[in-house]
């Protein structure tokens, strides 16, 4: 059995507790990366991270990219949204195909 975690600033993630996810309020990248490492070791299968924090983490989460668990997924928070989630998807296409062939903007 695995759990779902949400990491981000408190205001952005508070609501997720009510639908059954575990929330871990973090305000800075250092704390977030520590928490994510701990969560990954403790069998959390999916970790949602607010874009604000996720964009600061960068390489810290890169080494989880190759393993099936955990899936670290950026979600928009209340503030400082960078559009990183969408950019990430385009990055996958670029990595696989060589150029972003399905950008529809």
């Amino acid at each position, binding site marked *: *059995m*695995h*759990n*779902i975690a949400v990491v981000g600033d408190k*205001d*952005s993630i*508070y*609501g*997720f*507790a*009510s*639908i*059954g*996810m575990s929330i871990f309020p973090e305000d800075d990248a250092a704390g977030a990366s520590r928490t994510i490492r701990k969560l990954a070791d403790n069998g959390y*299968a*999916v970790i*949602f991270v607010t874009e604000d924090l996720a964009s600061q983490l960068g390489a810290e989460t890169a080494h989880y*990219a*190759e393993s*099936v*668990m955990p*899936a670290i*997924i950026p*979600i*928009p*928070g*209340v503030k400082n949204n960078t559009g990183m*989630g*969408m950019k*990430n*998807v385009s990055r*996958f*296409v670029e*990595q*696989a*195909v060589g150029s972003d062939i*399905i950008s*529809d903007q």
Partner: protein
Amino acid sequence: MAVLNVNPTRMELTKLKKKLLTARRGHKLLKDKRDELMRRFLELVRENKKLRRSVEAGITEANSHMSLARSVMSDKALDVALMLPSQSVTLEVKEKNVMSVIIPNYEMSFKTADENDIYSYGFESTSADLDVAVKSLSDIFPAMMRLAEIEKSCMLMAAEIEKTRRRVNALEHIMIPQYEETIKYITMKLDENERSSTTRLMKIKDSMVRQNIEAQRAADAKGQIAV
């Protein structure tokens, strides 16, 4: 293209021919793997984009309701309302093998029998906006999980496609031409050796015949003198 540094012998030639065969087979298989992965990846990535757009819109909407709730309720009251969630979700992670890429498959199970048991507070002391926020989060929850599944799969597949593409290219543009060149080089070298040994034999035969003829002539001349 550089020729491999090998001795031009028959043994090397057989070895290289075998290697070339394996390389060609590997190239074909990897190319098929890449094409199929790419097809599935593009399907997934399209869904990923669509889902992400709807999930992001849902979360943004929930967040705006949450801000409204926060503005009418005190921080403490909000904390108390959400402190002890009545719902809890656990995941069963199954692994699916797609062209040797292991992708996750999530199955959710809820703690309470009713999935909609999401309000962990009494309605008396909370704002209606909080209800709306919680409800909209709950509505997009399945989409969020599907997004997590698909996005992780895309991540893993993209990495695998990149790896496979490199292998295909290395085989197609480096290994196979190299083997072909080397095989050609060894064949030519062996043929050359064969020709040179044939000419040598012919030369030796020539000179032996000449010697014989001369010896015969000398013997004949002697015989004539004797006669």
